[in-house]
């Protein structure tokens, strides 16, 4: 167990190192730097940029030092908590990113709080009796909801609940402070897209457990069907969905971008997109690194959790 954790951690460090190097290198090509120089100096086009002003801009930004020195410097700064400075927002990136991550965290908390019970219950109900009407209905509904992309369900929900019925606000910018009403539509949008996938996986896992020998034995012994499902089947059937739910964190980080932009919710995704369009390179790099870190950590948690929950692997 310890060996597995150590190996996964080493792998994580390696992945983080390579992805940070890639991230640093692609924003370091001359073409990209020239584009950036033109923007920060207030010019019109790359062709109008004189070599002199480009060189002096490089010197001013400290970009004339060799690549490897700057990379080591950059990584060192990040490890000590200095993520750079946002040119667009005129703020250090560290606190800015922390603020936005808290907002996205609130969103993610409600998404998971709603999605996990919903998808597990539906998945178990469908997987209990494979091929029944109940199963087919739930499966069809989950394919259907997963087929509506976030952007479309955001529109449908806004049109119905905000524009049509007027129950909820259209935007979730939280200008007048935090409000639950503004959180409802973004959370629902993300839940609608995601619960179908988890429900289907839960169904597959449940269906597999229900066909196993020990469940047949339990039913033949005359144990009430409810108890067979609740006590015997559930525990095994929920191992696979658990790892899947942890992995949804990775998915959520890409899903929040469109939802936050559509509802103007000030979170991580909106920050990343604004920085990318500006372009505010240090913010893009910081956001991406954080996203990769979250993704890799959630993967490790899901791997370790799977081993821990599954005695067949734990004691092997």
């Amino acid at each position, binding site marked *: 167990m310890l060996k597995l954790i150590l190996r996964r951690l080493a*792998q994580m460090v*390696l*992945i983080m190192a*390579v*992805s940070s190097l*890639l*991230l640093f290198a*692609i*924003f370091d090509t001359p073409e*990209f730097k020239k584009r950036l120089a033109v923007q920060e100096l207030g010019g019109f086009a790359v062709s109008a940029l004189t070599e002199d002003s480009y060189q002096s801009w490089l010197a001013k930004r400290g970009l004339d030092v060799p690549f490897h020195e700057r990379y080591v410097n950059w990584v060192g700064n990040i490890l000590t908590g200095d993520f750079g400075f946002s040119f667009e927002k005129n703020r250090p990136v560290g606190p800015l990113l922390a603020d936005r991550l808290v907002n996205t965290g609130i969103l993610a908390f409600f998404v998971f709080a709603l999605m996990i019970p919903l998808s597990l219950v539906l998945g178990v109900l469908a997987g209990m009796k494979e091929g029944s009407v109940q199963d087919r209905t739930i499966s*069809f509904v989950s*394919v*259907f909801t*997963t*087929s*509506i*992309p*976030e*952007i*479309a369900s955001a*529109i*449908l929900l*806004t*049109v119905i609940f905000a*524009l*049509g019925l007027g129950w909820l606000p*259209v935007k979730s910018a939280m200008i007048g402070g935090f409000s639950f009403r503004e959180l409802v539509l973004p959370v629902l949008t993300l839940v609608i897209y995601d619960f179908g996938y988890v429900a289907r996986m839960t169904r597959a896992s449940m269906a597999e457990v229900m066909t196993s020998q020990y469940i047949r034995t339990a039913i033949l012994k005359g144990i009430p069907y409810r108890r067979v499902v609740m006590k015997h089947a559930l525990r095994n059937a929920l191992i696979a969905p658990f790892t899947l739910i942890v992995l949804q964190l*990775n*998915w959520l*980080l*890409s*899903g929040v*971008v*469109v939802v936050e*932009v*559509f509802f103007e919710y000030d979170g991580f*995704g909106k920050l*990343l*997109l604004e920085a*990318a*369009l500006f*372009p505010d390179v240090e913010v*893009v790099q910081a*956001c*991406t690194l954080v*996203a*990769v870190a979250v*993704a*890799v950590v959630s*993967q490790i948690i899901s791997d370790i959790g799977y081993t821990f929950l599954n005695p067949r692997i734990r004691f092997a």
Partner: protein
Amino acid sequence: MAVTELDAGPSFLDRLSRPKPLIVLAVLMWIPLTVYVMFGDRLDGYADTVLLPAIPATLVLYILGVRAFRESWVAVLGLSLVFFWLLMAVTAPYLPLMDPNKPIAPFTTPFSEKRDVFFWLGTDFKGRDMLSRVIWGCQRVIVWGVSATMVAYVVGALFGLVSGYLSGWWDEIISFFANVLLSFPVMVLFIVILNYLGPSGFNIVVAVTFASAPAIMRIVRGLALDIKTRDYVFAAQTRGEHPLYIMIVELLPNVRGPIIVDACLRLGYTTVAITTLTFLGLGLQPPDPDWGLMIRESAKTAMLWKFSYMLLVPALAVSSLILGFNLMADGLREMSLRD
């Protein structure tokens, strides 16, 4: 007599369902559409005739598809949705539609008449006909979505075959880079790549390849690891065939099955990604119609109940196409499990 009738051989449609005619039909449908969308502006006078061979090819392919999928109504429904949009994409220049880029009467509601023109789906904030924009818009979504998925599959399958069949160092290196790319959340990877390359259709293909190829590579690698222990692979090795020959001639055709289901699902993901990226301003560029672009423009101008059709029309269009891909994948999986 009855015996000779049976000996008459397979029917015309059966003969068309064999791989070779199917490939010819798919090429007949696909190449004109791709040429039209990607290089339409350089075709000059030929632009209107290019798509003509694609119309019958699309219809024949649809009939063959329904015949092949008839066991599962879910798959037929999915196929019908996908082919509805394909047919719209192929016939768009010949339908009696208004110019999708011509401003006529701004903010006309659906099913109403203005300036002597009847608008089925109304007009957008610039007064462009929504019906014609939705129909023209599906061309770009379908062509770029399918092209991006195909390129991702070629790259992913190639790396998957190499790392599965050759193993060793090749496998270690390829798998490591796949893991690095897979640890980026998809949308973050898209934003970083398109931010670097700049927004355009071809760059979307590059971005989708980076995002999807690692996952495809993993699937193909797993299948190749399984298949390479079969006798026919040993036979080929004993004959002294080149590894490249074994990969492409012996392994590739046998990993086809599971990949087709995944490809249908992935087509859906790619379509979502392209629409979303265009909505975010990182994808296809104006003024030509596109579903993501319609949403992007309307989201800024039409946040009122009265004008909500401007958002609903493209949203429903993209949902129906993706539902089509997903139902097809579902039906295919069901059918492959039954066999």
